[in-house]
């Protein structure tokens, strides 16, 4: 079993009203140093890498379901797991 983390975020050009609101809240706490906040989704997926090639599986899952390419993009990290 291998744990994989998938991060889905808005593409650069897409306005992120949640991120904007959170940024304003951070500013109101006095943290003027914060330039930008982006909100995204985070998935922790446990995969049996013996059943399928890991990267292929992650790509398929992300691109078919987890990501809407009109708005979003993604990246992933493969964490260590039991062999």
């Amino acid at each position: 079993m291998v744990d994989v983390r998938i991060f889905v975020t808005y593409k650069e050009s897409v306005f992120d009203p949640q991120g904007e609101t959170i940024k304003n809240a951070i500013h109101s706490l006095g943290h003027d140093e914060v330039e930008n906040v982006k909100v995204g989704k985070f998935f922790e997926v446990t995969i049996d890498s013996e059943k399928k090639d890991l990267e292929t599986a992650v790509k398929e899952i992300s691109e078919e379901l987890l990501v809407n390419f009109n708005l979003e993009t993604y990246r992933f990290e493969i964490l260590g797991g039991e062999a």
Partner: protein
Amino acid sequence: MKIAVVVFPGSNCDIDLYEALATVCHADVEYVSHKRDNLDGFDAVMLPGGFSYGDYLRCGAIARFTNIMPAIVKMANEGKFVFGTCNGFQILTEAGLLPGALKQNDSLKFVCKTVELEVVNNKTPFTSQYGLHEHIKLPIAHADGSYYADEATLEQLEANNQVVFRYAKENPNGSLHDIAGICNERGNVLGMMPHPERAVEAILGNTDGLRLFKSLLENGIKTEVTK
């Protein structure tokens, strides 16, 4: 003309569409489960509002994988009428039957109110009974209705006259180009965030949505006659 109203797990405006068609317009309409794999015998299919699969992940993202979807795509390809309102619109974009996507409202809040719309294309089978540039009022009720598409797609939509309804006066959710509803290039697939099915009876205070269903029924019957 026989119309299907698809019921996904979590659909909740299915009854509203059904009643608008059956009770108000006396149309031949039937509920169809998302589990069914064909729409044989139907001339039009309607995707209702609601929270299919709880709107988990993204609105409409999971409904797209239900059994019924290939049959809906087939109807769209055959030029039959496909209509989605609210969650139905979100499903149509997720399924790729309409371009773009629906984002969370700029206000970050669900909003239920009546808004003013401009009919920008009355050449579709859904809008033929409206005047071009006519202003109508329809209710909206959504948290994710902000239409987004990249510049190229937007240009194409405008060039092809695919924007059918635009928010007039006030843009309630941050939609680009004030888009409230769009159709595909062929004009037989319409998706819109406002709820015409909520505006078909005087007792509920608004009948501006009625002509959308009447247009559809009239054009459906015309097609049958010319077949």
